[in-house]
């Protein structure tokens, strides 16, 4: 077969030991499905193997893996939504996840559904902010953009999410908006 990657199995095992839980947890958070998360875990590590030279140069591999995992999972979420739409259009029984939120599972489904429908640049930032609990300055450093840009995109994300929920006839619990009492120094 083809040339083997310039990395051996022991090194890959070590990377799984250090970062496997991180990647799997993040994939599970975004994909909301254990089996999908397992597949994503493997796909991320295939990318690590294929870009092992780049990976070894990273001073903070976790940051690199966060971005790879996020974008890969968001692509999967979108692909799955397109497949559902395509299948639904030809009469398949597949149904989109209803955008409602009354408990933890429903909240996860709501977030998952929103991520599938909103632009990738907004969805990526939303994951960092709402799932990973980063503050805006941290996301700005990660993506190499200004903090104002991050705040602006987050507001766009929330506005579009509210519109989607309104179109679906779902009233989000707890109200929407931008709390002004809690502050992060970001």
């Amino acid at each position, binding site marked *: 077969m083809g040339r083997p990657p310039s990395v051996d199995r022991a090194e890959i*095992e070590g990377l799984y030991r250090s970062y496997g839980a991180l990647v799997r947890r993040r994939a599970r958070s975004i994909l909301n499905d254990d089996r999908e998360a397992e597949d994503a875990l*493997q796909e991320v590590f295939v990318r690590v193997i294929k870009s092992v030279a780049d990976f070894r140069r990273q001073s903070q591999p976790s940051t690199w893996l966060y971005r790879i995992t996020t974008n890969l999972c968001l692509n999967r979420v979108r692909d799955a939504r397109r497949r559902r739409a395509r299948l639904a259009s030809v009469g398949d029984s597949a149904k989109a996840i209803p955008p409602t939120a009354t408990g933890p599972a429903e909240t996860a489904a709501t977030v998952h559904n929103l991520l599938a429908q909103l632009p990738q640049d907004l969805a990526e930032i939303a994951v960092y902010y709402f799932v990973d609990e980063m503050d805006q300055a941290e996301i700005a450093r990660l993506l190499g953009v200004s903090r104002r840009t991050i705040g602006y995109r987050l507001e766009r994300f929330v506005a579009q999410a509210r519109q989607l929920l309104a179109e679906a006839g779902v009233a989000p619990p707890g109200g929407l908006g931008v709390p002004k009492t809690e502050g992060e120094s970001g």
Partner: protein
Amino acid sequence: MTEPPTDPPNDIALPGAPARRRLGPGCASDLTLDQLATGELSVAERAATLGHIGLCAACGQAHNRLQESRATFASTANLAALAADALSRAQATTSQRRWLFGWAPRLALPVGLSAAAVVMALALLMPSSGVAPPDTRTKGGFSLSTYVKHPDQESAGTLHLGEPLHPGDRLQFRYNGSDAGFLTVVAVDGAGQISIYFPPGETAQKIQPGRDLPLPSAVELDGTLGREIIVAVRCAAPIAVSDVVAAARRAQSLAGNNGRPAPDIGPLGLPCVEARQEITKIAQPKTR
């Protein structure tokens, strides 16, 4: 649209989601907690984060949750198997790339010639006879016709049923079907290795209805001898090639559990239409 004139508020509520756990500026994100665990924080960052975790119940709980997640993964995941699988997948995509590059120099022979000359070079790979090629037609589905070009031959010909193949032979497929869709072709060889034969990209390629429509790439057979099962998958919607490979891997695992040797695998279990073909590779004869 332009950016807002002032800094935006720093806390934004996600519709339908619970409030974020962060309560103050010292609170740690999951990334920071992960970096604490993997030793990526500076001494000062580490000290500040540990100090905060000791004081902040929310961050302490988040830290414990991540630690538990790491411990669970370490105790339940088969790291050796995961590593072997990832290496195998990486090699499969590498070998796919090799085939494509292996093909390219020959297509590049007419460099400097006109595009028409390139088309002629491609045409040499087309079958020279009208004999019906072997294919596998699926009910309501499609079939692939297979053509082979041996290294010492000028043109490709129909692959006849039962005709043995050799390492270095090149295969090209043609699509026959009345439906459009998104096509992926994978193969399982006698060693159990799964390879991607089509398409070269990461997503199944759109295919139009038609008869004898050549797929725009070819594959060169490697040195693994024995039977090989070629599985073509046509889906109604775009699908990641990696998803097809993962389905083949699951089918292979299931077949292995049922005592079936490679390359025998059952249906891939995708919501798509499959067509299959079996080929056999034998050692290259000294003289053809």
